[in-house]
């Protein structure tokens, strides 16, 4: 039969495309490591690839990544969930309450449930009542902040180590260290060898005191990619974000999939809140997420609505965040990284023939270079905004190639098919 012949050529074309994608990821990673290593040696800012910095980067990235995954789930089904921030806040309270009463594992579940509750609210407003997604999301953020503040005061004031605005002394979750490997890698990291020490630092960060929640998050990212792109459930869910009318005309229950998506979305954001309260810190405080829900949404956009892209973006944000907290002086070295990155990108754009943008990028890159060469430190006022500036910069550069789901943010009414 002639079909078998076609059969073989098609998957190989597909495999080639996917293979190329992964090659690009690895290439970018490699270039980043080499650049960081060069900058480390040139500036002597050992902190920028120290194992401790990278470990802090992962800790900082995790809640953002969870918020990003939450955003990914809902936006792939066509619902903009700007309420991630509020759902995260609900999660921090849920984590604290349930951990205090039933232990940390139930605390995780409780956080996810509280987040999902926020998601349900968003779903009710946007799916059933057709409220504008942004309006509903902003409302949920306000409700999330108000509700957690109120609930904390109502419940935690009487608890041991509790107060109207915080609850500390919560049981933590276990950390995992790979014995042997961890120490060896760390000492290798301290040697200061070109590239090898930097890679060792990265691996040490991945093998030393890794929270089980971090491992859970890694599983979630892989699972999200697998469910959304390799199951019929995922196909249906994504079709609701691309063309809900078409999906409905084929017998997909659009409302149901949107609800599932927004519930999962809220649940993941809630889990992100739990990470903040139980892993990154040792207790609950009000307004603990402090804008990470929004950053997660930005990370998802910069990650092109793709789980691994979101992972990369979250790590980038986590890295700059960790760097500014641990060693403000290393932020100065980061200027050089940014300058090199911009100049390289400018050269690439120039090679592509986009003269104007290449020149503009080149000038900005040169300005960073001059800034780096003429100063010794970055003013304290600026270091605090490093993560945001870097995110903004990367988003601005990447935004040309981004492709949101086609029906993202649009209100869908049942029966629009035909």
């Amino acid at each position, binding site marked *: 039969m*002639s079909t078998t012949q076609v*059969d073989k050529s*098609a*998957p190989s074309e597909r495999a080639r495309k996917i293979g190329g994608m992964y090659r690009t990821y690895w290439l970018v990673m490699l270039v980043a490591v080499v650049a960081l290593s060069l900058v480390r040696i040139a500036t002597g800012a050992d902190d920028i690839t120290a194992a401790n910095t990278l470990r802090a980067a992962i800790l900082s990235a995790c809640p953002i990544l969870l918020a990003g995954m939450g955003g990914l789930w809902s936006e792939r089904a066509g619902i903009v969930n700007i309420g991630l921030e509020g759902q995260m806040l609900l999660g921090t309270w849920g984590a604290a309450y349930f951990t205090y009463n039933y232990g940390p594992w139930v605390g995780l579940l409780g956080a996810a449930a509280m987040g999902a509750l926020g998601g349900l609210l968003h779903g009710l407003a946007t799916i059933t009542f057709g409220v504008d997604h942004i309006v509903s999301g902003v409302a949920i953020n306000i409700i999330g902040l108000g509700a957690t503040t109120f609930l904390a005061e109502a419940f935690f004031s009487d608890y041991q180590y509790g107060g109207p605005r915080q609850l500390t002394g919560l049981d933590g979750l276990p950390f995992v260290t790979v014995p042997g490997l961890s120490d060896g890698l760390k000492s290798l990291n301290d040697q200061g060898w070109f590239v090898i020490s930097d890679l060792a630092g990265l691996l040490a960060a991945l093998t030393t005191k890794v929270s089980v929640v971090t491992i859970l998050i890694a599983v979630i990212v892989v699972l999200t990619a697998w469910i959304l792109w390799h199951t019929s459930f995922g196909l249906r869910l994504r079709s609701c974000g*691309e063309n809900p*009318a078409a999906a409905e005309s*084929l*017998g997909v229950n659009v409302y149901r999939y949107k609800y599932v998506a927004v519930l999962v979305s809220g649940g993941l954001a809630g889990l992100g809140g739990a990470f903040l309260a139980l892993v990154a810190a040792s207790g609950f405080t009000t307004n603990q997420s402090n804008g990470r829900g929004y950053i997660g949404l930005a990370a998802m956009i910069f990650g092109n609505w793709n789980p691994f892209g979101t992972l990369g973006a979250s790590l980038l944000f986590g890295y700059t965040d960790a760097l500014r907290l641990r060693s403000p002086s290393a932020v100065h070295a980061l200027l050089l990284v940014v300058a090199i990155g911009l100049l390289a990108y400018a050269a690439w754009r120039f090679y592509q023939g986009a003269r104007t943008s290449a020149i503009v990028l080149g000038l900005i890159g040169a300005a960073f270079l001059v800034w780096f060469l003429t100063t010794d430190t970055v003013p304290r006022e600026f270091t605090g905004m490093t993560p945001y500036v870097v995110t903004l910069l990367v988003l601005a550069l990447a935004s040309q190639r981004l*492709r949101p789901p*086609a029906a993202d943010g649009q209100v869908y009414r049942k029966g629009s098919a035909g």
Partner: protein
Amino acid sequence: MPAAPPAPGASSTEAVIEAPEVRLIGIGKRFPGVIANHDVEVTIRPATVHALIGENGAGKSTLMKILYGVQKPDDGTIEVGGTERSFRTPTDAIGVGIGMVFQHFMLADNLTALENAVLGAEKLHGIGDKARAEFESISERYGFGLRPDVLVEKLGVADRQRLEILKVLFRGAKVLILDEPTAVLVPQEVDALFANLRDLRAHGHSILFISHKLDEVLAIADDITVMRRGTTVGSAVPGEVTKQELAEMMVGSELPSPETSESTVTDVVQLSLSGVTLTDDAGRDLLSDISFDIHRGEILGIAGVEGNGQAELVETVMGMRRLTSGRILLGEEDVTDWDTRRLRESGVGYIPEDRHRHGLLLDSPLWENRILGHQTRPPSVKGPWINRSGARKDTRRIVDEYDVRTPGIDTVARALSGGNQQKLIIGREMSGDPVLLIASHPTRGVDVGAQAAIWSHIKRARHDGLAVLLISADLDELIGLSDRIEVILRGRMVGTFDPAGVTPKDLGAAMTGGGEA
């Protein structure tokens, strides 16, 4: 009319799946204030192409939605293969082997062809290699030539339609409903589609073919049912009726035609484009070196397959896009750098392609819609203020002169039918003595009555010395109205035709780059 080719060797290897007979008996459907269908009787014989014809608004689409389970009938029964069925959702209809290809494609651009086909039918063949094999085998069997891993956004219109048909076949449908499938195709693509349909028929499928294009119906159908005002008014067999007879059954009276009378072309150039080029951000040419003149009293028709630069051309002339090089003259003046408002104030009227997105505020009353585009000119404004009474009075004039059927000028635009919305837009654009009218698909989606009225307004304006740039996908309209036709292909003008001697076939060939330029 193309002769039916013999059905290609369907018999040898493939098992012929015999479609069941479908009968619609006494179907009725009422919406608040309208009777969409009443006493509809249709019988579709197995393995035939059954054409359902009627004007816009005759109730064809409602009937299709009933047969496909999108809407529930108020009266009547549906029989499939002799068994009475009732469908609550499309899934029920798919379950008994009825599939539908909508007029507006139901495809997700950012998913692959395979994903679109599999969606909703994952249980049949999974979503992996088995589904891929099934996809390829269907594509092979009917000669669709579709590849499973291409993103739908990369597919052309004809391929999208084939994908829609494949999608239905993937679900094992025996009866296919095609709602105006030829509306978006050029003549050559229509021939290819018909070859596909004959092939499907030879494999034992039944096809319900909805159209109002009589040539096509006579070319493809085995049976014809005619609908008018929500009910079936007769049936016919091709070969035994003429086009004229069918048309009269459809309309119930004589047909209007777009034919213009004597030429009114003067030698005063009203709009002149020279070397107009438009490049997008990526450096590709959307329009390349376009030059033409339109004289006063002349209608220049632009023919082209949608997406070949018509929209960009209109937006460039209207000042919505900045051209990369070239010059535009309006009368004596160089208007190349003018913005849209200045152009409109100097007498350019514009009937946009999509009246809902660009022509009207659907939730605003008619008199506010009258002000749009005239927000700097009397009678809509007085100094910096909106002249409420002036605008309302002028809206009443438009409603009367252009026969806009509406309860009043405070009605919101959404409540009007497409034809009446369009008449309001035309009335508005003809206000304030325009010198140039740009009409994009002026009669798209309007009924025959409104179509005739719109044609006569355009003809009268031409007679009064208006220059008209007409873009239309309806080749009969182009040939009937235009004094000259230019064909656009991939942003270039590829040929000039005299409407007196050109057939839709010739235009179609030029539109796809098939014919000599």
